[in-house]
Structure formats: structure tokens, C-alpha cells
């Protein structure tokens, strides 16, 4: 995958008015599949953290990964943008395909991959820079230095992240760290949007936030779904039920390796799951 030398025009993907998704088709046409994993297993040294997960994520949909702590949801999420590469001793087997291209291959540029697959972390982690510089960080590293284009891009990204009105008056004066927790997380989302990704990974993005901020993030996710494919890890089952189109339930095997129990339309998983384990979990019997 070659690194594109020229940064595209600072227009984030336009929102296309799509037909409301009354029922999500899990058996989608192949062309609609954004991400597909085939027999993905992840281990840290000898310890298997995730075993043999195969699933697909449809373009412009939200997939929620739920399950008890230690079931490997976050580890699984991090193989989509190869953040597991940063952990010494971690190894990933199987295929993770983005638009049909296996991102696990050795000659894939992780830099380019991470530009297409952005990530929002559990703890809001803005850089200790101005709000403006936080959003401009990704584009700048890509070589975009045109002041006007950067200004436009920062504004568009902050608007899409529903933060513009709150920060537009002190973009350059105020540090990203001076914002509230919920604002910081929306800033982190704006920072990702500025790199023009196709997929956004969210690792428990609201777990450190108060309920009001959480709702704002959820609203934002529903808006972003129109233009982006989102995969979210969450401990909050109501959240998964509220925002996601498809839910995947993970749990731990006897050897503490995480595995996928079942995946299906969110409505179905929460009302009539096919596995007893899923039902026990969502009804609060364990986890």
C-alpha cells in the first residue's frame, strides 16, 4: 500500500442521505463489507488472548464488541489498525482485511493503515497542545502546511465532532487539556476525523465520562455512522443496544483465551440470542 504523497482536499466525506436502516442485513453483499477477519488469533508470548475470531463489518455501520473483562475485545479491536504491533511479544495470526486487502501482511504500511483506520482511546488523551494543534496534528504529519486549508480542515472536523461552537473562540489559546472530559473525547474524535479515515475504532470511548457527556458521544456516533464505519468496544450493554447495528459477544474460555460467542443484529442479540452464554451475560447473570 503506497503512502499517498499528496494530501487530499480538506473535505471530509460528505454525508450521503441513505435509506434508514430498518433491518440490518448481516449477510451483506460482499461489496458492502468494510472489514473482514478470518480466523484471527492473538497471543502475548505463550498466552492466547483471542482465539479464532471470524466476522465481518459492513461499511457505514456500527459494530459493538461486548463481553466481560479479559475476553479480548480491546485486543481484537487493536488488530484492525495494528496497534498490537507496539506491544512486545504480541503476535497475530489469521487475516484482517480492509476492503479486501489483508492488513497483516508484512509490506503493508502501518502509517497508511492508521490514517484509514483511526482510533479513539478509553481515556481522552489530547496532546498538551492548543485545540487547533491537536486537530491539525494528523494532517500536519502528512505534510499539509497550507494555512487556509488547515484552518478549513480544523473547522470542519470540530464541527463534525460537535465541538466547534464550544471552542471556536479560543482555538489557539486554549490547551486541549483545559477542556472537560467529554469535550476532550470529542476533541480526540475531531483529531481522528481530520485525518480523513474510513473506519473509526473506539475503545470504550465513554467509560471515563459522565452520563451527559456519554449521551453526546453516542449521538455523535450515530451521526458519524452515516459516513464512517465504526467499531466500538463497550462494557455498557445499554450503550451497545442504543448505538450499534451489529453486536458481537465475546467471552473467555476455560484457558482464559477470549473468543467470539456470537455476532448478529443488535436487536436480535439483545432480545433472542441464539447462545445461552449470550443470554446469561445480557441478562446480568455473569460478567
Amino acid at each position: 500500500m503506497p503512502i499517498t504523497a499528496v494530501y487530499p482536499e480538506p473535505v471530509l466525506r460528505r454525508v450521503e442521505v441513505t435509506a434508514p436502516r430498518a433491518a440490518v442485513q448481516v449477510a451483506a453483499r460482499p461489496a458492502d463489507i468494510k472489514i473482514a477477519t478470518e480466523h484471527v488469533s492473538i497471543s502475548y508470548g505463550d498466552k492466547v488472548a483471542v482465539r479464532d475470531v471470524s466476522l465481518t463489518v459492513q461499511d457505514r455501520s456500527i459494530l459493538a464488541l461486548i463481553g466481560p473483562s479479559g475476553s479480548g475485545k480491546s485486543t481484537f479491536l487493536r488488530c484492525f489498525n495494528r496497534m498490537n504491533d507496539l506491544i512486545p511479544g504480541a503476535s497475530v495470526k489469521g487475516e484482517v482485511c480492509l476492503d479486501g486487502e489483508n492488513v497483516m501482511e508484512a509490506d503493508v504500511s502501518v502509517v497508511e493503515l492508521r490514517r484509514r483506520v483511526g482510533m479513539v482511546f478509553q481515556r481522552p488523551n489530547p496532546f498538551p497542545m492548543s485545540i487547533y494543534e491537536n486537530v491539525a496534528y494528523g494532517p500536519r504529519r502528512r505534510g499539509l502546511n497550507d494555512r487556509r486549508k488547515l484552518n478549513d480542515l480544523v473547522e470542519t472536523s470540530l464541527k463534525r465532532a460537535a465541538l466547534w461552537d464550544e471552542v471556536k473562540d479560543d482555538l489557539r489559546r486554549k490547551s486541549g487539556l483545559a477542556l472537560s472530559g467529554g469535550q476532550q473525547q470529542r476533541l480526540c474524535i475531531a483529531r481522528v476525523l481530520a485525518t480523513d479515515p474510513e473506519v473509526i475504532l473506539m475503545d470504550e470511548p465513554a467509560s471515563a465520562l459522565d452520563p451527559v457527556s456519554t449521551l453526546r458521544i453516542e449521538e455523535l456516533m450515530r451521526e458519524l455512522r452515516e459516513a464512517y464505519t465504526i467499531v466500538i468496544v463497550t462494557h455498557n450493554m445499554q450503550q451497545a443496544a442504543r448505538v450499534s447495528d451489529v453486536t458481537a459477544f465475546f467471552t473467555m474460555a476455560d484457558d482464559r483465551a477470549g473468543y467470539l460467542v456470537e455476532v448478529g443484529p443488535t436487536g436480535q442479540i439483545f432480545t433472542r440470542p441464539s447462545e445461552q452464554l449470550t443470554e446469561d451475560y445480557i441478562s446480568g447473570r455473569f460478567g
Partner: protein
Amino acid sequence: MTANAGSIGRSSGAKPSLKGKASRGSILADRAATVVLWGTGALVLLILGSIILHFAMAAWGVVSLSFILDNPSQTTLGGIMPVLWNSIYMLALTMLIAVPVGLLGGIYMAEYAGDNIVTGAIRFAEESISSVPSIVVGLFGLILFVDDFHWGFTALAGALALTFFNLPLMTRLSEQALRAVPQDERSASLALGATKWQTIRHVVVPLAIPGLITGVILTAGRVFGEAAVLLFTAGIGTPPHYNFMNLDITNPTSPWSPFRPATTLSVYIYKLNSEGLGAFKNQIVDGSAAILISMVLIFNLGARFVGRVLSRKLTAS
């Protein structure tokens, strides 16, 4: 439940007084710890304060503008301008070499090197060189630069010997400052599609600047104060009258040239104190010491100020 609780604790029924003996020992220990720790802190301040006070009083009436700006004299008090210049010159020259190399070494150790035999050896070498007596480093500089390279006593030989002496500390402190930057910041940058070097350059190093400045200050303090390393490398003679208009750095008579002997303030103090003969010897030593202390203080405060400005510049727009 209440009956049980009673039987476990004090069956006699005598209620423990709030002023009871049981707590007296621990209260005493607590008070003692407070006194000892405050005392230790006060002692440190007292030592620093009395050093400064002693030289401030000793230098009273000696230090003046002419003492700082004049050349040394055989017959009058004279000044220390050339040696003060040499101290500043040696500081700049040494930092010019040691800071970039130390920073790059620290970046390698913190961001690139894993935990293996090579890095273990580097760490062992850092610690060993740091604990080699400075006079030995001076002798090494004498053999290598002054004799083998035929440089003679030169500022450059002194600066390189000082670099040997300071590089391990600078590298170690840089490494620690870089390691102290939270992993979250690196992840955030990498996840945005920045390369490793971009992450180091634009996030890790700017965030580590306060720690890096501490490294620079400690290194600089050692350069200013160091005498033993320089005795055999940069020379110990009384400096000639410098002509600052001579900007030819290849000319050994120019004060800007690294290829000339450069007696620094601390070496000068050592020389005067051990073999000086003039009538004003003691006043010059006291005055020089006061100037030396002031320079270190000014440098520390200045470095912190620069660090704050730099950190703001690199992280904000």
C-alpha cells in the same frame, strides 16, 4: 454481635482513654520523624545559604564591574574577565557537543533500544564512566588529545574531555526524561498515522523538555565547576589579554578559537589558591568564587526559563 465484639477486645470493660498509653509510642515516633525530616531539609538549606552568604560577605568590596570586566594585574586587584570568558566559552563548546549527542543517545536508549546485552553494556558503561574520578578523565584527555593528537592544551581538548565526563549523565537523564512521557501520548500519535520519528520529534521530545532541561542544567553545572578534568587538557596558565576583535577562529591568539589554552574560572581559583603569590590573591579567590556561584545560579534560572518558552513553542502553535 455486640457481646461477641466485647469479648474479643477488652473483657475487663475498662474503656480505653483517648489519652491512653497505647498511642503514645506511635505519636512520639511520628513527632520524631517530623522533626528529623524538617531538620534535614533545614540543614540542606542552611548549607547552601551559608556557602552563598560566606562568599557574598567575602566578596563584598571585591566584586565590581571592573573586577568582572578587567584583565588580571600583577600589582592591583585587577579583574577576571579572561577566565570568566573562558568558563562561558568552555560551557558553550562542551554543551554544543554533549547536548545533541546526549539527547540522541537518550532517544536511542528510550525509544529504539530494547532490553538486551548491548543496552545492558551501554548502561554499565554509563554508570562506570560516571563514577570514574574526574582527574582520571583529565589524564585520559591529556594522553589522547594533548599528546597523541598533538593539540597541546586547548579549549577543544578540554571540551572533549568534559564531554566524555558528562555524556553518560546527559544520556541517562535524557533517557529518563523521555521514558517519563506517558505511553498514551505515543499511542495517540501513532494511531493518527504519524511515523515513529514524527512521534518522537513532535510529541515525545517536546513533552520531555522540562526533564531534558534538568539534564542540561546538571551537565552545565559540572562543566562550570569542573577543575580536575581541565587542568591537564585546557591548560592552567594565566590568560593573556584577549583581543575580541580577532574573529579568526583558526588563530590560537583569538579568544574565539577552540585551539588555544583556556583556563576557566574554577581552574583559576585552584591555581591562585595553591600557587598564587600576589598581594590580592585572597580577594581575587573570594571574588571569583562569588562570581562562579552567581553564574551557576543565573544559568540554572535561565535554562528553566528557556525550557518553559521552548516547551510552549513546541507544543502550542
